């Protein structure tokens, strides 16, 4: 009887039968039983109480876990719904995306959000859900034009504008540079007026340079 109880005690401590700790516990129990401090009945009742406590903890854990599981799924569903609702427009004409439409008494956003939640709850893929809305409301329901077909033009325009602009800027820079070369060439080819004293030319050039420096540094 005692051996059987000790086995149970070991099992409940969860440390197996060969660990140092379980041996210590066994020795301790044996000592207490042999010294009369702990009767086999006491030990049995204590083990039963412990078993009940563990069962309670286990059921609480299972309860919490089972409660958390649907919560987790629900939260994930909501996040998905939120993400999908940013891809769709509210169809009441307010021009807001579905997720942000707070238009008071809006006839569209509440039913659309409800429908979206139902799609998400049924486990449909995002693309299918969006496609379903497009079939129902037309392409206007998408908050951004798809990047295919005619609508892809909307996506290309900024890039093309940048490329064109960059091209123009580079052409302008090239023209300016070319002008610089031409100017230098014509300046070197031009005859220097013999009548003008060199000092006068220098002072005029210096004055121009001063004026330019003033202009450029006044900010």
């Amino acid at each position, binding site marked *: 009887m005692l051996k059987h109880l000790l086995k149970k005690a070991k099992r409940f401590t969860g440390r197996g039968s060969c660990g140092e700790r379980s041996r210590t516990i066994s020795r301790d129990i044996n000592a207490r039983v042999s010294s009369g401090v702990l009767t086999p009945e006491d030990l049995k009742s204590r083990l039963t109480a412990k078993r009940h406590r563990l069962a309670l903890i286990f059921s609480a854990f299972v309860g919490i876990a089972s409660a958390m599981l649907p919560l987790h799924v629900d939260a994930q569903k909501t996040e998905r719904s939120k993400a999908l609702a940013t891809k769709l427009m509210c169809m009441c004409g307010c021009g807001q995306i579905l997720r942000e439409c707070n238009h008071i008494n809006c006839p569209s956003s509440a039913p659309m959000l409800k429908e979206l939640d139902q799609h998400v709850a049924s486990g449909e893929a995002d693309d299918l859900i969006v496609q379903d809305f497009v079939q129902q409301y037309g392409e206007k329901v998408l908050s951004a*034009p798809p990047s295919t077909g*005619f609508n892809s033009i909307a996506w290309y325009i900024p890039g093309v504008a*940048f490329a064109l602009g960059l091209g123009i800027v580079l052409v302008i820079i090239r023209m300016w540079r070319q002008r610089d070369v031409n100017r230098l060439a014509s300046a070197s080819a031009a005859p220097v007026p013999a009548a003008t004293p060199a000092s006068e030319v220098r002072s005029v050039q210096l004055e121009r340079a001063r004026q330019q420096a003033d202009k*450029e*540094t006044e900010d």
Partner: protein
Amino acid sequence: MDLFGSYALLLAFALAIYAIAGGIAAVITRRPLLIKSARNAGFAVCALIWLGFASLVYLFFTNNYAMAYVAEHSNRNLPALYKFSAVWSGQEGSLLFWSFLLSIYVFSALFAYRGKHPELMPYVGVVLASVQLFFLTLNNFVASPFKVLALPGVGGVLHLASQTDGHGLNPLLQYPEMVIHPPVLYSGYTGFTIPFAFAMAALIGRYPGEKWIHLTRKWTMIAWCFQSAGILLGAHWAYAVLGWGGYWAWDPVENASLMPWLTGTAFLHSVMMQEKRGMMRVWNVWLVFTTFLLVIFGTFLTRSGVVSSVHAFAQSSIGTWFVGFLIIIISACLIAFLKNRDYLRSDNQLDSMISRESSFLFNNLILLVACVAVLSGTLFPVLSEAIRGTKISVGPPFFNRVNIPIAMFLLFLTGVGPLLAWRKTSMESLRRNFGWPLAGGVATAVVALAFGLREFYVTLCLMLSGFVTFTVFSEFFRGARVISARTGSNLFSSAAQLTMRNTRRYGGYVIHFGMVLVFIGISGQAFNQDKQMDMAPGSVMAIGPYTLHLQNFDSDQQPNYSSERATIDVDKGGKSVMMLYPQRRFYPSNEESGTMVAISSTLKEDLYVVYAGRSPDSGVPVIHAYLNPLVKWIWLGGLVVVLGTILALLPNRQAVMVLSPATEGSPVSSGDGMQPARASISARSQLPKDNA
């Protein structure tokens, strides 16, 4: 009295025609009396428009419901402040308000330059009067706010009628900010008419030199400042009133206000190249033209109903008039340009790719690409409908995806531009100038990453914000250190002296810093949270660090509206930190509802609570709470931008230039290639002097 305003506007219309005809005759004949007469006609047009506007305000304040426009947009119980803002709440009144603000600019320009620039001003007067004539045509014949109320009687004959009370003002407009947002934004829109008029006049009249640029720079800055403030006030209004937790929805009307701002910003930068180097003349003239065209185009978008928007006025046939006007302006611009393009030849050339000039070129390119992206996104639904017969939506996901990279590049250039010298930047100068700003940017990114930020664009934005901030402060620091070394004053007072000596340059840096704050604020959007719950009294909602306890909800009756209000106790860390009272109002005069959002704003985040109404299922209040990080930075940034612009508009206090020998290795800002020489100017004997 009812029709006094109508007569005043009619007379203004006739005089505007005279101002144009007289101005053209004055340009041709060069007779001084004719020039003066045309100018005086311009003054008279402005005065008559003011009388017309004052008359409409009077009709609102005297509750004259015999007038259709007053009856439609006001009611007896409307508070006085909103009676004033109701004047521009509808199509007709807002167009008259436009004319009114334009007339203030026109009067100021004609008055400021009376007797000056005789070669230029007659042309300017003609262009300004032409723009006024277009709006006066609308005010008189297309959308008059002075129509009397009439009802059909026996046999369909119309009889004059009067109501005892009006329909009231749209609830969305019954908010203090709506009293100032439209005037500020319209002041921006209308203000761009002045640089347009000067550019057109200089081009047609082949006005020599860059004088017109100097004359219009301040006008452009004033218009730009109003436009910036107007856009941000509009964003704040949308945030505080519309109750969707955001401030910018890429709505067509918002886009319409952003586009001229973008081209105006490009002009304010590239104009420096024309002033200093005589470059970019064609570009600048076209930037001014484009900005004005976008102003008119934006007005067309808002008022024609061609694109759907919550902000737009009711659909009307007025769009045709704007299209006609746009065609006339484009034609006039093209003809003037083609006839006089040789006048716009540049004087100078680009000396180096690594220079202030090239940074301005790229800055302009990026701003223009942003404008094209916004314009194409705004008009794409119309294009799609016209070509495929299918209307599509282009909403925030498109605009954010396209514009965020552009904005990042622009922020990068904001930091780079001031560090480059005019003409050419040496490698040594590059190393010296970029060291601290680059280190600052990298350090900011490292701190952001250490705090767990993993969003690519947010981290990039913060890194570039750090870079620009260090650029701005290093510019102030290096200049102030030189003055401090020479005068013995402390760094702060030296920085103040430095700023006041060159208000335009350092005001510009303050504006850059303001834009950094705006960018940081916008980056917070990546971390927005929101939660919606049906909350009975006693219910609790947790969002971020806050716990919201709904204590009760009650109703209230005011003369102009009835309201339902939730009382919410907000806890943070177990302590009650504030009470919030979000409301939902019902306005019986026009049978419309509106929300009054409760916002608790800190530098870290905004707790934004909306009473969204009662749940149809349970009848209990539906509370929608948002936690929006860093929003306050946007408004603070806007304030800094405005202050920077005011600073840049102030005249310089110029130092008397007493040259002393330059010290070796003088550590002066060399964002400007010529700066070391300027550093040697003694600042000891300084005399305040206006340098307007």
